[in-house]
């Protein structure tokens, strides 16, 4: 695949030092996979180039060497085949994690996802569970050429039966992937490509302990979090748009406006409670997402906020989304993606004169 997409974390494969250390989003995912495979022999990983190469983004780096080619392996180049085989394996006692190499290359698997992954438990009155995870390197901002940067969450979120998660932080990359693999139902796990190389300083031992606690409480799926507290308006974002929203809030603060940022984390199920509580408090909201806005997850969030918070709203709920066009080529993508300026301009339009 695209050579530009390839970075190696080989230098980090040595035994990690104890205590807090810099961890990339990609390495957090890689560690989550390894820890899940270590904890549960039914967890297996497969897809295209995920074996010896370690995936085009190196998320499966070292897994074949460590767990053997029966547990982390390359498949023929066929996404429907990958997805359909995962369904069968999940029917028969495994917890498959599959990698769709890029968002826009996942479409051949769409029939399997919509007709079987999403429907099997319902079709069988819960007798056939499909505990599988579909990992999708997702969304834009990496200068990828055509078919490498789609924001496809709306297709999945619109399909009952799927759980759709989009982490935005290194910490969540680890905790949410562990939770997704433990989850009893199929999960579409959207990994924002532009965040793969973001870093946080984290203590892996504590993260692992937290994952175990999550396992006990089941709290890692379905909850939004307040990523930054504020009082004047709420920015609602997920995945790759969360850092942009946080940057916008930081810029607004310097202009004297206090913006709260909600990291949705879990697109399905959607945490109405956390989102509504924030908007009722601030009275204003802007939803931010990279996907084209028409008939999108962002539209759904606006509708839900409006239905639940109408009497608290001081201004219409607004959206900053991608335009309703195919994803642009690398030199044009910055015009398309939600930017700090576009977010701040939209915040400026939230009828402050009435305040």
């Amino acid at each position, binding site marked *: 695949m695209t050579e530009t997409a390839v970075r190696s974390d080989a230098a980090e494969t040595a035994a990690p030092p104890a205590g807090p250390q810099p961890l990339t989003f990609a390495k957090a995912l890689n560690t989550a996979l390894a820890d899940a495979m270590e904890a549960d022999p039914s967890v297996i990983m497969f897809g295209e180039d995920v074996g010896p190469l370690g995936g085009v983004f190196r998320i499966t780096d070292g897994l074949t060497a460590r767990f053997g080619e029966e547990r982390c392996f390359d498949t023929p180049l066929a996404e429907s085949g990958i997805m359909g085989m995962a369904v*069968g394996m999940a029917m028969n006692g495994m917890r498959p994690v599959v990698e769709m190499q890029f968002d826009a290359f996942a479409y051949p698997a769409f029939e399997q996802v919509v007709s079987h992954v999403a429907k099997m*438990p319902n079709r069988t009155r819960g*007798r056939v*569970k499909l505990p599988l995870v579909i990992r999708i390197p997702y969304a834009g901002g990496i200068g990828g050429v055509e078919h490498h940067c789609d924001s496809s969450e709306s297709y999945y979120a619109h399909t009952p039966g799927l759980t759709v998660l989009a982490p935005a932080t290194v910490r969540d990359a680890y905790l949410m992937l562990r939770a997704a693999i433990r989850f009893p139902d199929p999960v579409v796990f959207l990994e924002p490509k532009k965040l793969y190389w973001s870093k946080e300083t984290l203590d892996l031992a504590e993260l692992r302990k937290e994952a175990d606690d999550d396992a006990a409480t089941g709290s890692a799926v379905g909850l939004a979090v307040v990523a930054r507290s504020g009082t004047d308006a709420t920015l609602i974002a997920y995945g790759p748009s969360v850092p942009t929203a946080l940057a916008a809030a930081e810029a607004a603060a310097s202009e004297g406006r206090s913006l709260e940022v909600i990291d949705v984390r879990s697109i399905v*199920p959607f945490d109405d409670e956390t989102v509504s509580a924030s908007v009722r408090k601030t009275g204003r909201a802007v939803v931010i997402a990279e996907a084209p806005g028409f008939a999108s997850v962002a539209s759904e969030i606006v509708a839900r906020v409006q239905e639940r918070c109408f009497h608290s709203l001081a201004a219409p709920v607004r959206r900053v989304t991608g335009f309703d066009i195919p994803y642009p080529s690398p030199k044009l993508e910055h015009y398309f993606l939600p930017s700090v300026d576009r977010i701040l301009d939209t915040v400026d339009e939230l009828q402050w004169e009435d305040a």
Partner: protein
Amino acid sequence: MSISTGSSAGNQYGGSMKRTGQDRSIDVGPTAEEYMLPSAQPVQLVDPQGEHVHNDRYPLPDGDELLAAYRKLVIGRRINEQANALVRQGRMAVYPSSHGQEACQVAAAVVLEKDDWLFPTYRDTVAVITRGVDPLEVLTLLRGDWHSGYDPHEHKTATQATPLATQLLHAVGVAHAAKLRGENTVVLALCGDGATSEGDFHEALNFAAVFHVPVVFLVQNNEYAISVPLKHQSVAPSLAHKAIGYGMPGERVDGNDLAAMLSVLGKAVDRARDGGGPALVEAHTYRMQAHTNADDPSRYRSQSDVEKWVPRDPITRMRTYLGNLNLLNADVERDIADAAEQTATTLRDGLNSDPDINPADLFEYVYTEKTSQLREQAALLADELSREGA
């Protein structure tokens, strides 16, 4: 490639090749072409006149085995007839009949062990019932109470697939998981001739071959995909010829010959169980009736075409053959007819009583735990229903 003769008796393809297409330079035994290509004509062991046809590679099942399968064949025909009647009476939404294909249906069910898996399609109701699933649970789908009425795990029988060929990949996954755990499971995956045009057919056969998993693919070539004849699906010499392209053996068989179906499928299953990998079997048969009751076959085929297949009926020839062996007499036939009638009565009685349908179930199985959105919607519907009832 070394050709091991230490393989099981069930290996009719000439070798126990773990992988194919490797090291073809060593000239010791059959070439890939020799053992992967199907027979020149569909394998037939009992002809339409009820006479045994000798075949060097496929032994004729013994009389008792054939008699037991014949009994299921007659019951299968009765199930098709009764289901058609229930549609006419408005007790079922639709029924895709396998009338004329019952030899394929019965063979698919009886060649499997209890812990093997069967992956049927919507037209394979008889196979699923023959496998032992409660007939009323099977017909839940077509009656319209729920999508699938039986527990796939209980009978190792997947839900009846309505999208074409998608289930073949699930079969590969089930077999792959079993293989990774070292289990001795074989998976039999069914599809029709039309489904061989789907991309998932290709991906399933390729995955099965590459991962060398124990799946037998049975294509029931009944010559029609709703209205479209086979010649518009494929111009391959036969559908079984597709196998060699994936590196697995293919065989074609007279799908209306119960004996040949049992022998050929049985050997493919044995071979898969012994580590021989996947195989593709094409059964030549004919869809004697409409696609479903909603179809009008007079628009695309003539009655005279259909009548050509009447003398090739799977029941007639087996009845003649077993009669000639003195395995069938009036008492045995009456016993079989009684059993068939009993199954029909079960279907009639079961489908004539209205099912207990609970609207709250709509929300119950979408997720293991209902989302807050589904809890709200379930409450909305419950409220509507309570006001209706008030």
